[in-house]
């Protein structure tokens, strides 16, 4: 599914722009949406899942106008909000059945099979009769993605899906999304965890202050940071100076003091070497240099 966003604006009553003249095309496959808090990611997501009406602009999905064809578009959607929970009194399978029914699965036999299959896929079949308050955080998140995936939606939108998950669950989750994206579905993954995007998304966009800051592949973003990521060996005193001067990506204690990764064009005489950037470095570099996000101490 191809999604085309044109001149999208979302203005709150107080005049603040959540989204400002946003133009973006989202191709098939997994698409990452990156940006700091307040960048407008959630607003965009809520608009895409028809929970919110933008102030102006146009969105089409495979040529269908989002605002004129809500029924059709909703029937193609799967959505996992950031803080997903479900009715404590409903069992795992019941909630999934509820979602499946609303997703348009009318025949009970077909629906039951789909529910069981989905529970198998997300590893919840064993707890199908367990109520919500008895599920772990990871299980709940898996149930969330299960309800988003039920009835094979063409567009799946997931908001901060791995936040709070342990590494094992996070990897499992990423793999699940990758598997789904292979089934001719578009997945929009909104996150502030850069690793989620680097490991799964073919394309991405970076939002800041309601505007599109970057769109392209993660590799394109990484390229922009090449030559600007340093690994410095610093004493305790130097560490404190560096921390004030540059955006520090990571700090590792060493025999001589600290091994620090920073994003900078030059490191002004400190002892260090350039290293190959990853997406996280690229994100910080982009935010630091292109948008002057960081303030110098």
């Amino acid at each position: 599914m191809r999604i085309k966003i044109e001149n999208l604006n979302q203005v709150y009553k107080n005049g603040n722009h959540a989204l400002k003249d946003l133009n973006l095309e989202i191709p098939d496959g997994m698409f990452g949406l990156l940006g700091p808090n307040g960048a407008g990611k959630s607003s965009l997501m809520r608009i895409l899942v028809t929970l919110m009406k933008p102030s102006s602009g146009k969105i089409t999905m495979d040529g269908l106008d989002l605002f004129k064809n809500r029924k059709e578009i909703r029937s193609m959607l799967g959505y996992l909000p950031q803080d997903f929970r479900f009715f404590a009194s409903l069992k795992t399978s019941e909630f999934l059945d509820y979602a499946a029914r609303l997703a348009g699965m009318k025949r009970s036999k077909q629906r039951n099979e789909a529910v069981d299959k989905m529970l198998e896929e997300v590893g919840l079949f064993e707890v199908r009769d367990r109520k919500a308050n008895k599920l772990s955080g990871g299980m709940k998140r898996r149930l969330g993605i299960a309800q988003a995936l039920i009835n094979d939606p063409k567009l799946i939108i997931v908001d901060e899906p791995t936040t709070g998950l342990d590494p094992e669950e996070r990897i499992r989750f990423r793999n699940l999304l990758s598997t789904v994206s292979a089934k001719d579905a578009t997945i929009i993954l909104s996150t502030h965890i850069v690793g989620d995007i680097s490991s799964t998304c073919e394309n991405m966009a970076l939002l800041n202050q309601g505007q599109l800051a970057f769109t392209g592949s993660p590799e394109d973003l990484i390229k922009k940071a090449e030559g600007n990521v340093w690994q410095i060996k610093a004493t305790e005193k130097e560490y404190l100076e560096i921390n004030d001067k540059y955006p520090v990506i990571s700090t590792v204690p060493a025999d001589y003091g600290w091994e620090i990764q920073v994003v900078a064009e030059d490191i002004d005489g400190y002892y260090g070497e350039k290293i190959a950037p990853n997406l996280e470095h690229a994100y910080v570099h982009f935010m630091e240099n292109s948008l002057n996000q960081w303030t110098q101490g």
Partner: protein
Amino acid sequence: MISLHNILTVAKYENRTLFRSWFFRIFAGLALLALFGFNIGVLTDLGESLWQVKAIPSAIPYTNLLILNLAQAIIAVFLASDFLKRDKKLDTTEVIYMRPMTNTEYVVGKTVGNLGVFVALNIIVLVMTAIFNLIADGVAVDWSAYIIYLLLISIPTLIFILGLSFFLMSLLRNQALTFILLLGYIAATIFYLQHKFYYLFDYMAYNIPLFKSEMVGFGNLPVIVGHRSIYLFFGLGFIALTIALLPRLAQNSRLKQVSPIIAIMFIALGVMGGYKHISRILDEGAKRDQYIELNNKYAGKTSVDILEHEIHLIHKNTGIEVTSGMLLRANGSEQLIFTLNPKLVVSKITNKGKDVKFNREKHLIRIDRSDLSTPKDSLQLEIKYQGTIDESLCYLDIEDELRNSRFSNFMYSVDPRYAFVTPGYALLTPEASWYPTAGVTFSDTNTRWLKNDFTKFKLHVKTDDRLQAISQGKRSSVSEGEYTFEPEKELPQLSLAIGAYQEMFVEKDSIKFSIWHYEGHDYFSSLLTEVKDTIADLAIDRLRDFERQLNMEYSYPRFSIVEVPAQFRSFARLWKSHQEITQPEMVFLPEKGYNLRDADFEGRLKRAERYAKERQMSEKDMQEQVVNNFVRNFTTNEARPNFRRGRGGNYEVDEVLNPYFQFAQFYNFKNYMHSDDWPIINRVLEAYLQSSVFSPRSMWMRNFSGLSEDEKANLLLQEKSFAELLGDKETDSKIIDNIISLKGKVLFSLIEAKVGAEDLVEFIKDFLDRNRFCQVEFSDFEKEVKDKFDVDLDSFMNLWFNESRLPAFLFSEIETTKTDKEDYEATVVRFKVTNTEDVSGIAKVTFRVGGGPGGGRGRGRGFGGGPSTEDNIEKAIYLEGNETREICYVFEENPRAMVVNTMTSKNIPSLIVRPFAKIERDDKIVAEEYDRISDEAVTLHEKNEIIVDNEDPEFRVIQEETKSLLKEWLLKEDENGQKYAGFNQWRPPSNWKLTTNSSFYGTLVRSAYYIKSGDGNKKAQWHVPVKESGYYDVFYYVGKGQSRWRGNPKGELQLSINHDDGTEEQTLSYEKAEDGWNHLGSFYFSPDTALIELSNKSELRSIVADAVKLVKQ
């Protein structure tokens, strides 16, 4: 466009979520438990049978659903207002809202889900109720009622409250605020609005009459359906508004515009329904006003006597078709005026076969004498008419407020009806004006309409073959469905009941006793097997007892108890004591006597069985007792008192007149005393004749109420004259009977005082016998009284009717001695009485003799106020204004007590009981009766005595008001606003309360303050106005009458006496104290220093502060 699949999906999981919520489960469990207990209590042998519910099968599901509905209407608010919050709180809204469904599907699904849960609970309750219903002995099952009440009570209530909750929650987006508003609304409907505004706000159907009769079904189904539709439409409107307000982007923009339109449409329908509901009642009120206005125009404008009246009535599916033939005597009137129900359309009037021009305006038919071809006094009119009954014509004299008041029994309401004309049933009484009557039925501008034609009736009825007709007179069946009724005597009125009746009868002493019950309503035969053969004896014995008690005769050859629909309502009237349920020769009993505890033969027999062993009663004895108790309902003028519990826990009691009292059979249907000058005279005579049926209940009931109804009447008579009270619509309708009765006693006691009770009774009996079955003028009665007794009533009447001043009586101490009189030892009772006011008055004294039969001079029997059984001797004392009389009575046997009834006077209590202890012998006393004027007025204290009573300004109570506002609200002790409270032995007040009792000290008002005993912080003080220094004996008054029934309680009174030498603490043992003045000691007092104080510290349950006396040595 709307997906049922989506609605059902949302509903299914909403339903499941609610079912699994503990809040709902606990509520449902408690509701089921409570109703289980209710049904056990009401329908099984384990509880106390509740006849109001058991008698009427539909009342079983009705009451169950009313109880459930009250609870579920509140619980639904909690669950429904969770509507948005629950989804939002659990953050599930977004994953649901982004699904392909419309807002309508979502909201409707939620509603259906919520509704489904409650409907399921209702069904469970109904199934449980049905099981109880099936296993209960002798109780039928009305299956249709189970479904109808679910639809009428629960569904509209739930849809309304769910819709309102959803709407408010959507609008306010604040659950706490929504709760407060909704619970406030519910509380207002339950505690304040109730049945006000004609049940308009009764969304729970808690007050609106939904009673379903087994005989006629619902009383007014269109009104009921209309009322319930109001809430159904409002509920649907609110649901549609919720759809419009749902914070979710509409799936279909066109549908989004539709929902507000639908909401407006439903709400408009609700508003229209409400308007229709109110306007129906207001229109009826307006129509009644028009009827009265028309009556006012023609009241007294005609004088026609209907001598004979032959009615041919055909009962049809659409109404009745009647030919009424009347033989009339038109007493010189220029216009003949008849009243006939306005929905009975007159097609033709003829006089001796020739057509007569007539004018029909609403309910009146007017014929000009000049249009009659034979303008003679004797006319033969025939009126043909057909139609049905407009019940708004009924009870024009009854204020709309009372007429529209809730007609309830136990916890359910009954739709009042005043006549029935349906294809399967008809009930017509004179109130329905189903046959033409001369003149108008009521006017509020003059009383010239009051008259009573005694007419020779003949009635022919044709109805469906399967139906029976019941009316007055000898009944003969011409063929199936055709009946003729020929009353042997002239009657003032005729009634007719047609229905699927069955008759059971017995005959004895030429009287036929019938019970006309509805098909399938013979619930008693199988219970009263042992008395089957003796029931006629029981009935005739009771009738003869009643005749003896009244000193009047029953004049008809039959008496029937006719079962009528429970909706049939009648009212007590100002000008007659009997209600429409009493008709000549018959009484109408509502379905299975559902409102009569004694009609519950099974329950009564079970109750009797509990006491049978200790009383050695056989099965037959028990059944006889039960039958006698049932029959007693027709011979007792007071119904069981109505106990109410006030907010402070105090019991209050209302004297309730018994509507089934059959006195009218002995007087009203035989005699009528007419007077244009004193139109109330017939009612007064009736009240006087009735008062021979003495109820001892009123003696103890005043202890609950603080004042008897007679005393309340007296207080009113102190402010207004009899004439003013009769004409004042504000006069309490419960008291008006007492006012009339008191005035009756006063009027006839005037004659009694001159000629003695016995002669008066015989005279009245003879007068009434001579004037049976016809109207007699009061002037004729006055003339005969004058001729026979030389008593000029005419000169007294104006004063009696228009005077608002009342006499006040001071009675001296009563001296009783024994002395010889001829060949026996006589008891001599001497006393003096002063009328302290300048208006004349009458008091009655009754001596309780007791101890079996025996002669006694002046023995009274028959009519006349207060106790008048054969063991009592009555005397009337007439006093001119400011007159004192010395009186001496001589008795052959020992009187036990003297009861003074001051009737209309300023005395409170109006009944003063003076028991006689041991009577000493004194041979110096001459046993000679006298009643003579004395120059020396009665004084209650000697010259050297100073008495301070609690009514005096020198008395005061001291108490700290320590109650919190909440406590004051919750434990409000005195809510009736009257000056004198009842005396509550079990729960005395925590603050001083003023109460009255004949054992207390007092001049005109025998009152005292009383309080619960405590720690001594509440006191009563008497500041005795001593004028002269010196030694005084101090006495304290202890009246023991109010505590006599519970023996002589142990405890003490703590008194302190402030005198010149200090303060003397005194303890007076209540147990040992004399009934009256008790000496506390002698003390020296200077002027204005004497202070006697009583504290509430005591082991007694209550302390009474009454009077103190200082006697100068």
